[in-house]
């Protein structure tokens, strides 16, 4: 339930570029983030997502381009005047100050009255449920608690934008799930615009309103989590977000797609040439080839089970079809006799789930 999300543009990057020495890390980047929205920068390490975040924070200056917040140009504004709340991967709590002093630091820099400092820091600590640890030093806190102090410290100044740099990567899996929900809840309560850098697709998809998928300093796709997952704009996005099978294919001059030695149907517009065909493992249904061979508007490929991996709630089948190996994921189910290695099967998926991209040679 997005509370205060609107279509009003808040943060805008306009042709931002940066080079480190001879390396052009970000050639030119345009992006527009709406007020109250949480946007993820998702990509592999070295894709420029943290660099972009640091440029927004002012920790590094872009070589060219403009950054505006609410229409105001902040490109050349010094960091301390930018009004950004930033949560660092290492939390960066001040080790020589206790929790309260850490949270109060930003307020003291802003000439807030003494009573207001006391009240607001207390409220911020209550918000992250750490009121009882106010007197502790950072090193006396667990990773998750430090994370929450960092969050309180960034939020208490009511910044115009909250920047989060891989805030969950130092936490263990269970705590990460908890913090994910908590950060999202805090962001929505306060209606703050947030940018969240991560290399973890689950974080990006589950927490954020929109996701920017980056590679080599460029934006591959910018869209809602559903769009990114269901309609990946490029083969890279499809590969990076969620698991996928990748088949080498070809589109003939007649427009017919062929992969795994068979003609396939897809809903994408196709132009002749070599292509990558991508299919999500869980969108493929498996049937013993002895069963009824139903035909529809989908694709049916014959294959032979070559290995089975049991992962608990999922079973992964690796199926050999032609000269390709296709991974199929099925929820563990009981109504069908289990398949065994060496069984002949039919792989079945709809034309909609057949993602076709021109072969980018990678």
């Amino acid at each position, binding site marked *: 339930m997005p509370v205060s999300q609107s279509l009003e543009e808040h943060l805008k990057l306009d042709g931002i570029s940066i080079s480190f020495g001879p390396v052009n890390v970000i050639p030119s980047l345009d992006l527009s983030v709406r007020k109250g929205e949480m946007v993820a920068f998702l990509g592999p390490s070295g894709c420029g997502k943290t660099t972009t975040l640091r440029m927004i924070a002012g920790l590094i200056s872009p070589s060219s381009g403009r950054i505006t917040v609410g229409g105001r140009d902040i490109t050349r504004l010094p960091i*301390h005047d930018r009004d950004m709340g930033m949560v660092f991967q290492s939390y960066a709590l*001040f080790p020589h100050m206790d929790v309260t002093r850490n949270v109060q630091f*930003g307020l003291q820099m802003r000439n807030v009255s003494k009573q207001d400092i006391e009240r607001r820091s207390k409220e911020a600590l209550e918000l992250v449920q750490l009121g009882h640890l106010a007197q502790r030093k950072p090193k006396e806190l667990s990773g998750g608690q430090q994370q929450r102090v960092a969050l309180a410290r960034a939020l208490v100044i009511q910044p115009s934008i909250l920047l989060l740099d891989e805030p969950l990567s130092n936490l263990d899996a269970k705590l990460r799930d908890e913090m994910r929900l908590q950060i999202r809840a805090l962001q929505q309560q306060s209606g703050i615009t947030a940018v969240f850098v991560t290399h973890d697709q689950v974080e990006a998809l589950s927490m954020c309103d929109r996701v920017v998928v980056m590679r080599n300093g460029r934006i591959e796709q910018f869209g809602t989590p559903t769009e990114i997952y269901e309609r990946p704009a490029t083969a890279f996005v499809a590969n990076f977000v969620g698991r996928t099978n990748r088949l080498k294919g070809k589109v003939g001059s007649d427009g017919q797609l062929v992969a795994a030695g068979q003609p396939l149907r897809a809903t994408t517009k196709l132009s002749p040439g070599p292509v990558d065909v991508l299919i999500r493992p869980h969108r493929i249904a498996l049937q013993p080839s002895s069963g009824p061979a139903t035909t529809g508007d989908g694709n049916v490929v014959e294959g032979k089970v070559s290995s089975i991996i049991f992962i608990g709630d999922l079973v992964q089948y690796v199926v050999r079809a032609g000269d390709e190996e296709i991974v199929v994921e099925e929820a563990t189910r009981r109504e069908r006799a289990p398949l065994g290695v060496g069984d002949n099967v039919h792989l079945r998926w709809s034309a909609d789930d057949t993602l076709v991209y021109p072969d980018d040679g990678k």
Partner: protein
Amino acid sequence: MEIHKTSWPMRILVFVLFLYLLAPVLLVFPISFSGDQVLRFPPTFWSTRWYVALFENSKMLSAFSTSLLLASIVTILSIVIAVPAAWVMTRVKFRGRDLLFNLFTAPLLLPTIVLGLAILIVFASFGLLATMRGLVFAHLVVTLPYALRILAVALNTQDQTCEEAARTLGAKPLTVFFRVTVPMLIPGIVAAAALCFLVSFDEVVITLFLTGPRISTLPVELYNYVYNQADPLVAAASVLLILLTLGVIMIVERTMGLSKTFVK
């Protein structure tokens, strides 16, 4: 720290090495309680007469207070100068930074006798010989490289994201320096201060060139004393110096923890 099981031959080797290093220091203790007129081991009878003699020796006492004052001034100045200098060396990128840093720390590598001569020649023309000011300047030449090096290492290993965090929270550069960088640097500052104090308090070679009848430091005075007569008074003085050194180390240990301060 991890505790390793050490084999017996290794333990014996370490023990012998330590004995070799510490034997002269340990010998000083019994000799200082000798009742003899000359330095001799073992003493023929025990007494505290040399401690009494030491505290009745006005030359030694005034040299001691000179040394104490000198080392304190030198330590404070070293820190006040080296902290901002080390900050510039580690946080500001400019051309020739490495060259400058090496130049600043070069006196560490020069033979002190060369430094002493050079300082003598230069200071003579400025009338700085046998003055407190002259001694302070000369000692700074020796202590600053130590301070600079220790503080630069400490600043380099310090988590710089804390400074970045302070900046995003609205702190101006000077505020970041005084409220985040310096407080986080305290262990490094204590280490540098302790070392500067001990180096200055201990300095003989350069100081020899600059002292005279008007002003002298304790190590130089001890040196002169031994030159003229070899009685156990110097042993008594040595014991007190060892205790002072231990005292400085203990203060560092109590406030910071030795390993945290000196081992990076």
